[in-house]
């Protein structure tokens, strides 16, 4: 069914009018409402994405991208074979064998419990700043590491212990309040097990941090190794879930602005329908079908929705990108890991926002459109 004529008329209502008409006014108001809604949503989500991608890249930068753990227990069977298998198949990937446990760490002033991790990629003893603060020590100081494991000596059973010089202070892992001491793998093995036990294999691949877990899992499943592989997502599930949830909540909350804008559009389309009631009746009289009159209003709503949301998206993106580039919004230094408020435009999010705005516009135009088409033309022709 051709709606060229109805489109033609609708476009004349919007542009090319010779006077400032109520239709033009309400259309501009609707446009402004939708544009503002989309603008707010785009900027807010860009801000959120900016912060979240900061958090993600921090995750990528520091921790392992995947971890191979035993299916049960704390010992990984044949760690060397697994490591060389992974190295052979994955190529340029950092592979570190680790063992973890708890111990007491003492300095001159006393001892406190702490996490201990042995890593095959280090030959120094490192203490993180949390533990250093608790012990009141700094780089270069000597600490004593005391195991819960005992050893029989001529003086009876005594805990396994050794002393080490702290090489440097490491930044703390997020959420670690006890503090961690990092040791060379063999020392940690002696401390925790008394034999060369490996608890897990850590993998890092800066080229593909989020896909590494799946690749490693595929290789190890093929080899039927009794292990579980946790990818980056599994390793940080609570945090990532919180981030995703945060984004959804913000989307819904700020998205309510779009709903309000759509309600405004609905009122305005209804107003246009009332204002142009006579024209609609005349067009029906000249042969327009109810469906094409309905589509006239749908098109009107969609055009307003499209122009409004694209304008809002373009302006919002431009503002977000400018604020990001110029680092115009500074943050107090030392509190956050970035010095200015970061913004990031995610094309998928942008598309979703525009799609939601368009959908709401179509819905908003649909209701008055239905009412219009249901009337008999004569009702609109009553002489004033």
């Amino acid at each position, binding site marked *: 069914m051709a709606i060229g004529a109805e489109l*033609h*008329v609708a476009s004349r209502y919007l542009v090319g009018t010779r006077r400032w008409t109520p239709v033009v006014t309400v259309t501009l108001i609707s446009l402004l409402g939708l544009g503002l809604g989309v603008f707010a949503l785009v900027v807010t989500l860009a801000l959120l994405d900016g912060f979240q991608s900061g958090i993600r890249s921090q995750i990528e930068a520091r921790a392992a991208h995947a971890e191979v753990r035993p299916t049960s227990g704390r010992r990984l069977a044949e760690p060397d074979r697994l490591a060389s298998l992974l190295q052979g198949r994955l190529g340029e990937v950092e592979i570190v064998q680790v063992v973890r446990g708890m111990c007491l760490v003492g300095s001159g002033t006393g001892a406190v419990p702490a996490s201990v991790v042995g890593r095959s990629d280090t030959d120094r003893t490192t203490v993180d700043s949390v533990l250093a603060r608790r012990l009141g020590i700094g780089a270069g100081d000597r600490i004593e590491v005391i195991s819960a494991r005992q050893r029989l000596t001529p003086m009876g059973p005594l805990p396994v212990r050794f002393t080490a010089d702290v090489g440097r202070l490491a930044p703390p892992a997020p959420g670690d309040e006890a503090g961690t001491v990092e040791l060379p793998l063999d020392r940690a093995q002696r401390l925790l097990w008394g034999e060369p036990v490996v608890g897990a294999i850590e993998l890092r691949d800066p080229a593909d941090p989020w896909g590494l877990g799946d690749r490693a899992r595929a290789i190890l499943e093929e080899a039927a190794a009794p292990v579980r592989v946790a990818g980056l997502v599994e390793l940080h599930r609570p945090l990532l879930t919180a981030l995703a949830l945060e984004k959804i909540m913000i989307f819904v909350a700020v998205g309510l602005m779009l709903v309000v804008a759509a309600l405004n559009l609905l009122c305005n389309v209804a107003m246009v329908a009332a204002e142009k009631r006579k024209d609609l009746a*005349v067009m*029906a*009289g*000249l*042969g327009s*079908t109810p469906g*094409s009159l309905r589509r006239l209003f749908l098109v009107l709503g969609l055009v307003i929705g499209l122009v409004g949301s694209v304008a809002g998206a373009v302006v919002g993106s431009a503002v977000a990108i400018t604020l990001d580039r110029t680092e115009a919004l500074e943050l107090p230094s030392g509190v956050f890991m970035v010095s200015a408020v970061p913004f990031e435009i995610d094309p998928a999010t942008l598309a979703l926002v525009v799609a939601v705005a368009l959908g709401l516009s179509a819905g908003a135009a649909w209701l008055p459109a239905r009412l219009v088409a249901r009337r008999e033309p*004569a009702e609109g022709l009553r002489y004033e």
Partner: protein
Amino acid sequence: MSERPPMVRAEGLGKGYGSGPTRLEVLDGLDLEVPAGQMLAVVGPSGVGKSTLLHLIGLLDRPDRGRLALDGLAADDLDGNRRAGLRSRLIGFVFQHHHLLDELDALDNVALPLRIAGVRAAGARDRAAELLDAVGLTGRASHFPDQLSGGEQQRVSVARALAMRPGLLLADEPTGNLDRDNAERLFELVIELHLKAGLTSIIVTHNEEMARRCDRIFRLAPRAELSSDVRTV
């Protein structure tokens, strides 16, 4: 020559407005048959239901009772799309108030029914220009309705009604808002086009003189049995 069906056949047509105690029965059991090619004048006091009748015949409204056939085709049970199709192909309307679209110039107003019927813009405009010539408005094509006089507006309206070469012209007090001279000239134009295009026309008018120039006068009265139907020629 085979018998041509009447252009309009209404039987027992009834229509009322409102409900409950304010219900107003406007038409009640109206019978009317208009043979093809006839020019019928409908006269009657204000509020008697002339516009209502024209709207029913023009498929702009649905009757409460009765049957209606246009050009031999029963129109009672057609859905909205089929009714729209019939309005487009068969019926041309001239309203008392010109009812031109303010946002369209004269040419686009005349082209509108063609565009609605799916005629391409260029073709529709060519035909619209021809029609404006035919109603004596050459050179006024790009004037908007508010830049035209009342008589000119009604001429545009007549041109628009004839754009789709309808078989049935319905005019609701087309000269009602015009001064004597303009009314006279418009009526002449309608008669001329009626004859030239072989139309069937139903013209609602208050003007007895004009009514007498039609083939037949249908006088609508508040009670159906008082209505009269007179051939003038």
